[in-house]
């Protein structure tokens, strides 16, 4: 087992909810699997047909329910299976970034990545990098702290 993939007891393991589009990033995650690329088990995928389906509420719900990070994966600009859903996702992403900043959530906890069906290794790179970032930031909800997002 590679040293960095070994779980370390007591270390904070961030939880990531990953919204992956059906046509590019979900397939990239499948490709990572068929290529037996190993990466951290912190990201759990919710499949949507298009990154454009990712509702602002989904992101807030994930943060409210205990996610330390939210990852959105879509097709590269110009490659969207539905022509331009990824552009809509990008716009919404920018909006939510500002929104969560105002709520005191670090912007780095929300990430949008373009990963094509051929980029299996990119899934590993992005997830590992996000895990690293989130470990640095620590848990979103510190023990004893009220959950301001619970209303979402």
């Amino acid at each position, binding site marked *: *087992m*590679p040293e960095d*993939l*070994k*779980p370390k007891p007591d270390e904070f393991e961030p*939880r990531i*909810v990953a919204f992956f589009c059906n*046509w*590019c990033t*979900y*397939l990239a*995650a*499948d490709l*990572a*699997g*068929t290529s*037996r*690329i*190993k*990466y*951290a*088990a912190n990201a*759990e*995928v*919710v*499949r*949507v*047909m*298009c990154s*454009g*389906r*990712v*509702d*602002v*509420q*989904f992101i807030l*719900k*994930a943060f409210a*329910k*205990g*996610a330390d990070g939210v990852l959105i994966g879509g097709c590269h600009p*110009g*490659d969207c*299976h*539905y*022509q*331009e*859903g990824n552009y*809509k996702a990008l716009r*919404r992403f920018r909006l939510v970034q500002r929104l969560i900043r105002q709520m005191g959530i670090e912007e780095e906890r929300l990430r949008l990545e373009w990963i*094509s*069906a*051929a*980029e299996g290794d990119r899934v*590993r790179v992005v997830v590992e990098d996000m895990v690293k970032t989130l470990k640095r930031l620590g848990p979103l909800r510190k023990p004893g702290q009220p959950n301001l997002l619970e209303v979402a």
Partner: protein
Amino acid sequence: MSDPHGAVRIGVYTCHCGTNIAATVDVKALAQFAATLPHVVLSRDYKYMCSDPGQELIRQDIRDHDLNRIVVASCSPHLHEHTFRTALKVGGLNPYYFHMVNIREQASWVHVDKAQATRKAQDLVCAAVRRVAFHQPLERGRVAIHPDVLVLGGGIAGIHAALTLANAGKHVFLVEKEPTIGGHMAKFDKTFPTLDCAACILTPKMSAVRSHPNITLWTYSEVTRVDGYVGNYKATVLRHPRYVDEDLCAGCLECLDACVYKQAKVPDEFNMRLSKRKPIYIPFPQAVPQVPVIDPETCIQFKSGKCKKTCIEACGDRHAINLHAEPEIEEIEVGTVILATGFQTFDAARIPYYGYGKYPNVYTALEVERLVNASGPTGGEVILRDGRKPQTVAIVHCVGSRDENTHRWCSRVCCMYSLKLAHLIKEHTGAEIFNFYIDMRTPGKGFEEFYQKLLNERVHFIRGRVAEVTDWELDPSEEGKLVIRAEDTLAGFVRRIPVDMVVLATGLEPRADAPEVRRIFNISCASEGFFLERHPKLAPVNTFTDGIFLAGCCQGPKDIPDTVAQAGAAAAEALALIDAGYVETEPNTAHVEEAVCCGCKTCISMCPYRAISFVNEIHKSRVNEVLCKGCGTCVAACPSGAVRQHLFEDDEIFAEIEGVLSNA
């Protein structure tokens, strides 16, 4: 918790997938965990859920245990979602009362720690169980398939696919970019390993295309736009003017002789610029269609307007030549598309130390194909650019293949065509031939036997990648020669071999315009740029866009037999769709809850398919579910939650999010 779903009875099935899942995910523990989740009345694990006994398990349990929701934790839904939905249907349940959990591609195969992988699998199963409780029964729609087919690319792949479909009685539009069909194969002299003449097997198929009543052939044309979806594509084809009317031209070619250019002066692309052509030309004598084309870049009339226009004079009463022809736009409707756009060969000049473009006697393999071809620029004589006959020839394998600096893939055909060229050059000149190879790859029918034949013909094989081709002589024997420097890795020393001619076995790469084609047809490319098939083994000619199929080297390097086999497969896939007459569509379309819609029209601007219209009378939006492709962008944008998406309802996704985070 009150139960909003009536009596939800969920069955959860965990697949071992042999040891593919079971080695990394504790499937027993996962099944036991699932049994504790709300509404789960049955949780089983089984070796292979996708097998017939596995499916039967689901079908039987639906009957025996009154299950009304099914969750299967196994591989990717892209692989077996359809399989299990069908099992539900056979078992008497609506197939959309199902959710699949990907614990193979996205868990067991990508994680190493069993505890972590199992924990993640539990979260995902929990998410699916919560989600599936909200599922509603859905019906698939039906879309009629237009019986016509568009085949893009007129190489051997496109030709074979078009003829197969046309022979089955389907109408085919064959669109080719060049002024003639035939593709790369038309340039070859012989084909390996049988050494049958490429022209003898290709040109009859080319003329069959021309004369087939079911084929509309548009050469010198390209597809500029494609709209629609499986069964109902609308394609826009741009037909470049060839300035000679195809319907009026009789193919007498008198205009070529009459051209004011008495000598051909323009490098001939078909002959790899080894000969010259006139501004009005026919790519090669057996070209289809047998209609000349005028190249406005070099024609005097186009450049200066002061030509005597002897070509028009020669054409006489036929009036086939029209120098004022404009590009034409054709709009066609087809149900299916076969992409057979082929490849380009690696540009040898990208590897400067092989001297292509610097030393005149360094050739690419495709140039040598033309030299050995009886209808080529030298009439089949292998002579160097200075007119000499080569006495010694080096063939350098893997130029632009298996190389970290250029392309990492093996181009599959180069070993074999190098053997073929070695045989042909030896036959034509009696020269001594040295092959420099990394590995000899001859894994086809009759290929290894052909290699043995070449060994018996005393062609030399030196194992080692060539370091450089140089004209820097070290002793008199190397004077006036090209020197190959290579490490002979079998003998264990560096060799210098002086030769008269160097042939670079250039690899196959995606065409420069492949990204554009990919965008127009909305398909995916693999990382190296070849078009991506839906599944490398189970759907090798399908793409992720329904109704669009792949054939030939646009999908990856392959030889002629494999290309023809793939073209036949693509034609068969298209035929299967056409003859079914309709295709079932996924029900994941959007719809508007009219009672909730406030008429703000936000959704309308979201839809790239213009599927949403505004009904003025009631001041509400309405989704045309036939036009809706089911991306859900409008759903996410609706500020009042009035637009909803089947199978991706807010409730379902919220439940899924809560599920994955249930033990956070």
